[in-house]
């Protein structure tokens, strides 16, 4: 199968076959990171711009490492060190970047739809590294890769996503991705954090964490942002942690082979207990490792990799 997409913008626009191809490619890419010399010449001469309007550690470093392991030239710009502080619009910045002929632009932005906007403005490939509350497709793909690696499949699994669904692009992309691959997704959290119409993405909704996780193969916890208290989404961290947090006791009632995931950064003691983060069911750091592999696969595939280059 050939990969023909120019851009990776969201999970809706990827087919089951394309997702399988990305995950298969990522599985092969993973080995490169275990070599003593962690570099292949596959994307030599390609330029990857990491354009981060919003703070990020994990995703930016992960893309940067992925590009470097494939020998691409990568460079990173952030809002605070670019002309954005001088009032340049995204459209103008994009056109100027385009004039320097990058091959791939990886965009992280706080506004939904910005990677769609950018993709319409430039000829380079655009990879969405998170746009507002809309989508975070590379996170969903690395989560799916991690689950598939641990369970050997995705179809038929029960996935519980717990927390602030309203503000989470990770939740949206994972609901769409996992259901597309045949898993069942249940979301749970306080009703203030469950957005209207979320069922239309394919998830079922619960307001009770214990019900949601009792037969889950995977529990995915979402980060709670403390500033959400100001918009009355929850009264206190104390209550949140008690009613909706993943405590040791809750994990005891889960399946004995449950996988516990978190996209990071983790608020230990708020949405997830200290012991659970580091506990035997946690695969949080596997997610981070696989993030590099998935991003290597995506950089390779959007560069036309399956047609004119080789990963070996």
């Amino acid at each position: 199968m050939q990969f023909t997409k120019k851009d990776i913008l969201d999970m809706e626009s990827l087919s089951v076959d394309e997702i399988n191809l990305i995950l298969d490619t990522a599985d092969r890419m993973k080995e490169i990171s275990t070599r003593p010399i962690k570099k292949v010449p596959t994307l030599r001469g390609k330029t990857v711009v990491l354009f981060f309007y919003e703070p990020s550690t994990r995703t930016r470093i992960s893309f940067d490492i992925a590009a470097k392991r494939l020998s691409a030239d990568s460079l990173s710009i952030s809002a605070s060190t670019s002309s954005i502080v001088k009032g340049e619009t995204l459209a103008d910045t994009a056109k100027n970047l385009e004039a320097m002929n990058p091959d791939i632009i990886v965009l992280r932005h706080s506004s939904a739809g910005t990677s769609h906007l950018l993709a319409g403005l430039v000829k380079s490939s655009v990879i969405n590294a998170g746009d507002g509350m809309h989508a975070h497709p590379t996170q969903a793909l690395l989560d799916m890769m991690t689950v598939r690696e641990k369970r050997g499949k995705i179809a038929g699994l029960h996935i519980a996503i717990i927390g602030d669904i309203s503000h989470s692009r990770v939740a949206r992309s994972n609901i769409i991705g996992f259901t597309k691959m045949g898993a069942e997704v249940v979301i749970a959290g306080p009703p203030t954090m469950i957005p209207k119409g979320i069922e239309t993405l394919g998830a079922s909704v619960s307001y009770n964490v214990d019900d949601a996780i009792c037969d889950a193969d995977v529990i995915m916890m979402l980060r709670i942002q403390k500033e959400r208290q100001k918009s009355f989404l929850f009264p206190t961290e104390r209550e949140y942690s008690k009613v909706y947090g993943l405590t040791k006791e809750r994990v005891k009632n889960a399946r004995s082979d449950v996988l516990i995931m978190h996209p990071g950064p983790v608020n230990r003691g708020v949405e997830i207990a200290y012991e659970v983060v580091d506990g035997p069911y946690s695969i949080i750091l596997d997610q981070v490792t696989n993030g590099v592999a998935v991003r290597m696969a995506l950089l390779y595939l959007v560069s036309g990799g399956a047609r004119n280059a080789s990963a070996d």
Partner: protein
Amino acid sequence: MLVLIKGGRVIDPGNLDGIMDILIKDGKISEIKEHGSKLKAQSSKLKVIDASGKIVTPGLIDMHVHLREPGHEYKETIESGCLSAAYGGFTAICPMPNTNPVNDNGQITEYILKKAGIADTVRVYPVAAISKGLNGKSLCEYGELKEAGAIALSDDGYPVRDSQLMRRAMEYAKGFSMPIISHCEDLNLAANGVVNEGAVATSMGLAGIPNAAESIMVMRDIALCELTESRLHIAHVSTKESVQAIRNAKKRGVKVTAETAPHYFTLTEDAIKGYNTNTKMNPPLRSSQDREAIWEGLADGTIDIIATDHAPHSYIEKEVEFDQAANGIIGLETSVSLSLKLVHDGVISLTGLIEKMSTNPARIIGIENGIKIGYSADITIIDPDLSYKIDSGKFQSLSRNTPFNGWDMKGKAVLTMVGGKIIFEEMVSANRKP
């Protein structure tokens, strides 16, 4: 100068409906006769407009537009906005006061009218601010504003949050027979929302604005209107709950009127998919159930008028991230065609359309407008069957922010006459007198 408009179907709701000839002398309507019957006046200088197959109506009035002068002339000037109105078939428009500086004092009202006089195309009836600087803290001088030429009061763009100030504004405006036009929005509830709350917003990751953010304020203002026995006009109605509240209030005899805009009866929230910022406005495009309620409200008279909320913005405000894009679209040059679609689809009658675009707005702002002997010849001619494609590149407006570019339409305004003077004409040549 004599002008004869011949053979068109003349519709002036409640007054005339038939194939008639209209003679215009010195800018006024001097004779109205059944088509073919002999007119008294004869002259070799007679200009004849053959309107056969067309609809001849009293001049259309858009009660809700934003001209960007003074302050943002790169988006629209009074001159360009007036010309845009003329090309859309309007003979009169009511510009909202949210210019910079705000139209909250007599000098600004006079400035707007002076510029409109220089443009010398459509009639301009300025709406002045309810509160100074639109800040909701103190009342403007309605007496002076009325004297300068303002015809109504509105803080459009912002709601009046303080219920006491709104009450007093309604009472005080009553003394000058000026209606209050209310932008109904609970800002705390709308919060940082940018589109309609619901499945579409959720899947696109955009913050939603619930229907209640509008209807709560509609209900409050109806209550205040009842309390003060004043005249209230609700701007840009977009939700089914608002329609219901207005319908109930009218049944009780409250003096409330309401408008909606073509985009609310044409589009739904589905139009925002793809993040086209020309589908972003406030209130937002709503669900299909809301659109249906708007149709019902138009059909049963709950919604009195169609107004465009013509809101020009340049690329600078629109070619940006969706949540940061300015609200609003232009509407003057697409309104008649989109409204005629309602007639073609059987939602309202042709007479109903003219009521909503001419008769009712004239009544609400208190001006003389109609096909009557002695009245100023403010007349619009509509070709209800003319098929064409909307081309925003040809608009007279300085801005291009419309979601309707490229739409195939049936029917449009083909002639606009103000005070007997033709300010826009696009009659197909076959119908022109040699």
